[in-house]
């Protein structure tokens, strides 16, 4: 965006913002003032309404008291009460009419709606009902069977004639009994009657009665007068005109009367119950905003209480339309002023911005030429800020011209130039100065380095020759080591073979020992079998012994028999004797055999024990052999690893041998390369002589001698550098003069090539 447009736009937008802000602020303030004024207005209206109701209340109380006392009312009430008690009301009819007339007169003059008189028992005595143009007044006729009314209907304000009294059954709006007439207080209270907020005044009627206590006539309460006054549409209209507001009255039965019929509901529940000592003058107002139909209003509400409950409320509405019209007017005026200001200021801003932007365009063109390197242009000068800027830019161009001259001289190899640094911030000047200093320094250092390279290369030549000799000796030693390693390797292999053989033997021994254990177990089993058979044999022997015993017994019996047989039995006795001998011999033999068998059983037991011990010993041998086999196996593994390692060592040694041979060759090549390096150093020195060096700028301690000595040694190389020997250096000043100066690389990577 152009500078001109920026100035114009900023001026215009500032004006717009100021006008909008001022309009909003002013309208807000006016609105708030209006609101407060409306509230004051409403409060004033309520003050008038309260005063009016207060005066009505006072007047009603006074009227009621007047009715209760005027024209000997107490005595008349006492008279009709006595008549009622006696059951004959015909006598007191005139008195009833008088009472009714009295009440009627006062009601007319005080514009009351309804007046009633009750006796102390709560029975009706008289009533007056004013219904606009018509008035009904009357009294009840108490009878034991049925109570009827005697009423007269007249035009309001006209006294009833004697003949206008008629009997009637009922009268609307009049109760025969009043609830607890005695409890009605003296004064005027609020009540809802027929949907209207009403003031109800009551006053006791007194009569003189003889008191035995004081022995004189004393006043006593004889009846009650009750009068109603309605706050009806007429009251509302009057108050509206008086306060220049709209007034609506709501009761707990809904809309009662008002100026704005569209506003017909108000919920009285929002007014909480209060204590019985409520007073109208102390009741606070409630304010709110209100929209009814098309109108918009400020609203104030005054609630009315009776027996602690809210029974009615007066809403006073004040239209907002006037306040709104005022605000709109104010906004219109302010907007007009703002537009006028914008139209006035815009042309002025245009002229001012033009005078600024023209010289700035010229400076822009000048800067464009500077960018392209044209230092010949000059700017016009003047006395204002833009003219001063032109002069300063001209000075910049002059300074640039001077430094360009110095740079041209340096490019021609003249390093003896001096630079005037303009200030500490003069980067270009300082850079030129540093450049000259550093180039001087560098070229002198390069000359020295070339000398050192010369010396170093001859040293390299010497040391590479001795290196070559050493490598040859190393190769001879390596051969000897290799033959020794081969010998060791063959021995290790033999070791491994022997160890594996030993391992095999150990395994065999282990198997044999296991077999031995098994054999021992088999032997033990066999011995057990022998033991078992021995027991069997001993049983058999016992049987044989038993047989021998039995035989002996038989022989004895035979001997007995033979003895009995006398001389015939003699031969038999001899036989029996022989049999007995045989039996005893076989018994003896059996006994001996039993002893032998017992001995053999014992020996078998001993044999078993020995077999067990042998088995245990064999197991131990087995374990030992297992361990031996493991150890020998480890030895075998270790030996074979050793053999492998030795073969690797041999391999490594042959690699070392290769390297050593290569080293010898490299050392010879290095020697020849060092000679070549010496000739390249001489060439560098000749190239450096092209620079005119400022000797004051040299910082190192001993350059002078070197500089003087170097030309003598100068020797141009016979042939140019071989390709692949090095790379050109990156230093630009050298490139400017001789771009083909070779660089001999001697680091590790490059060295590998030789």
């Amino acid at each position: 965006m152009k500078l001109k447009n920026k100035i114009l736009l900023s001026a215009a937008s500032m004006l717009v913002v100021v006008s909008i802000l001022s309009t909003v602020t002013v309208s807000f303030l006016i609105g708030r003032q209006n609101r407060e004024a409306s509230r004051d207005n409403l409060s004033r209206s309520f003050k008038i309404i309260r005063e009016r109701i207060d005066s009505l209340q006072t007047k009603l109380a006074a009227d009621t008291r007047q009715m209760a006392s005027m024209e000997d009312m107490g005595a008349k009430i006492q008279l009709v009460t006595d008549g009622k008690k006696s059951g004959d009301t015909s006598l007191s009819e005139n008195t009833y009419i008088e009472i009714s007339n009295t009440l009627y007169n006062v009601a007319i003059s005080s514009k009351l709606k309804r007046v009633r008189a009750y006796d102390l028992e709560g029975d009706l005595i008289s009533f007056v009902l004013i219904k606009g143009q018509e008035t009904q007044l009357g009294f009840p006729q108490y009878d034991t069977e049925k109570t009827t009314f005697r009423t007269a209907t007249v035009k309001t304000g006209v006294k009833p004639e004697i003949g206008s009294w008629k009997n009637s059954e009922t009268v609307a709006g009049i109760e025969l009994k009043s609830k607890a007439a005695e409890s009605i207080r003296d004064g005027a209270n609020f009540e809802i009657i027929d949907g209207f907020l009403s003031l109800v005044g009551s006053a006791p009627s007194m009569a003189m009665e003889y008191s035995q206590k004081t022995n004189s006539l004393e006043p006593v309460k004889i009846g009650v007068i009750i009068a109603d006054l309605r706050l009806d549409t007429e009251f509302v209209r009057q108050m509206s005109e008086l306060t220049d507001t709209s007034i609506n009255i709501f009761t707990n039965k809904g809309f009662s009367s008002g100026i704005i019929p569209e506003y017909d509901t108000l919920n009285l529940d929002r007014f909480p119950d209060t204590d019985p000592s409520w007073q109208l003058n102390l009741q606070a107002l409630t304010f709110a905003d209100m929209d009814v139909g098309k109108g918009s209003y400020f609203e104030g509400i005054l609630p009315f209480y009776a027996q602690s409950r809210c029974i009615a409320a007066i809403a006073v509405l004040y239209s907002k339309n006037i306040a709104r019209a005022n605000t709109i007017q104010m906004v219109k005026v302010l907007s007009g002023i703002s537009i006028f200001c914008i139209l006035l200021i815009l042309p002025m801003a245009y002229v001012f911005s033009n005078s600024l932007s023209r010289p700035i365009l010229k400076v822009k063109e000048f800067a464009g030429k500077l960018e392209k390197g044209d230092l010949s242009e000059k700017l016009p000068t003047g006395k204002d800020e833009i003219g001063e800027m032109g002069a300063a830019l001209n000075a910049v161009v002059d300074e640039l011209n001077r430094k360009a001259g110095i740079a041209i001289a340096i490019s021609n190899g003249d390093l003896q130039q001096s630079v005037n640094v303009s200030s500490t911030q003069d980067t270009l000047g300082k850079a030129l100065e540093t450049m000259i200093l550093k180039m001087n320094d560098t070229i002198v250092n390069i000359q020295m380095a070339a000398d050192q390279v010369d010396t170093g290369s001859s040293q390299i030549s010497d040391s590479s020759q001795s290196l070559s000799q050493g490598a040859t000796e190393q190769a001879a030693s390596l051969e000897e080591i290799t033959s020794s390693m081969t010998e060791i390797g063959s021995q290790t292999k033999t070791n491994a073979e022997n160890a594996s053989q030993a391992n095999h033997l150990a395994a065999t021994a282990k198997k044999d020992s296991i077999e031995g254990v098994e054999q021992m177990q088999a032997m033990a089993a066999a011995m057990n079998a022998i033991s078992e058979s021995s027991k069997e044999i001993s049983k058999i022997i016992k049987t044989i012994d038993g047989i021998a015993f039995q035989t002996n017994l038989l022989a004895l019996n035979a001997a007995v028999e033979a003895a009995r047989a006398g001389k015939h039995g003699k031969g038999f006795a001899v036989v029996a004797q022989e049999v007995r001998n045989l039996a005893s011999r076989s018994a003896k033999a059996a006994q001996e055999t039993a002893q032998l068998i017992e001995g053999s059983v014992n020996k078998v037991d001993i044999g078993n024990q020995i077999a067990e011990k042998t088995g245990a010993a064999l197991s131990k041998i087995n374990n030992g052999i297992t361990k031996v086999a493991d150890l020998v196996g480890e030895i075998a593994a270790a030996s074979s690893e050793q053999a492998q390692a030795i073969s690797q060592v041999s391999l490594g040694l042959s690699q070392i041998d290769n390297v050593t041979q290569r080293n010898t060759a490299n050392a010879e090549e290095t020697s020849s390369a060092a000679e070549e390096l010496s000739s390249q150093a001489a060439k560098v020195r000749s190239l450096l002589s092209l620079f005119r060096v400022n000797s004051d700028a040299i910082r190192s301690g001993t350059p002078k001698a070197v500089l003087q000595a170097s030309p003598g040694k100068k020797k141009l190389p016979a042939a140019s550098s071989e390709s692949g020997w090095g790379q050109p250096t990156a230093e630009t000043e050298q490139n400017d003069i001789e771009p083909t100066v070779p660089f001999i690389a001697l680091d590790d990577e490059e060295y590998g090539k030789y």
Partner: protein
Amino acid sequence: MSMAKDIGSIEDDLLDEDDEDTQKNRYFTFQVGEEEYGLEIMHVIEVIGMQKITEVPDMPDFVKGVINLRGQVIPVMDVRTRFKMSPREYDDRTCIVVINIKDTAIGMVVDKVSDVIDIPEDQVDPPPKISRSAGSRFIKGMGKADDKVKILLDAGKLLYDEELEQVTSTID
């Protein structure tokens, strides 16, 4: 039983005169404890091995009970108990010698039976007069044979008469 008894008595009657001399001085010997005893062969009926003894209540303590010998029920008397010696467990060498005392068969439990030997009358000495103890009343004499002395028993006195009666009557 009665038939076997009859046969026995018939045999006795038949052999009485001829065999008297052959049966004389012949003794059946047996061991009780350490001592050897002899019994005239004419009293011995037979020797049997140890059998199951059925105990009979209300008997003298030396009568162990009765056995069934081939259908004949005979009482059995323990000689050790009879001689007031300490009792001993019966083993496979213990035998019952069935003897005939006054036509009554009775078994005698002895430790071991030995032999049938001849002891001439001149080799028989009267029993020693030192003891009047109960044991000595059964001894008829002391027979000498092969440098050993056999105590010869009087089979008749092995039981008191009354005791024997009691035993036999119980069996009958």
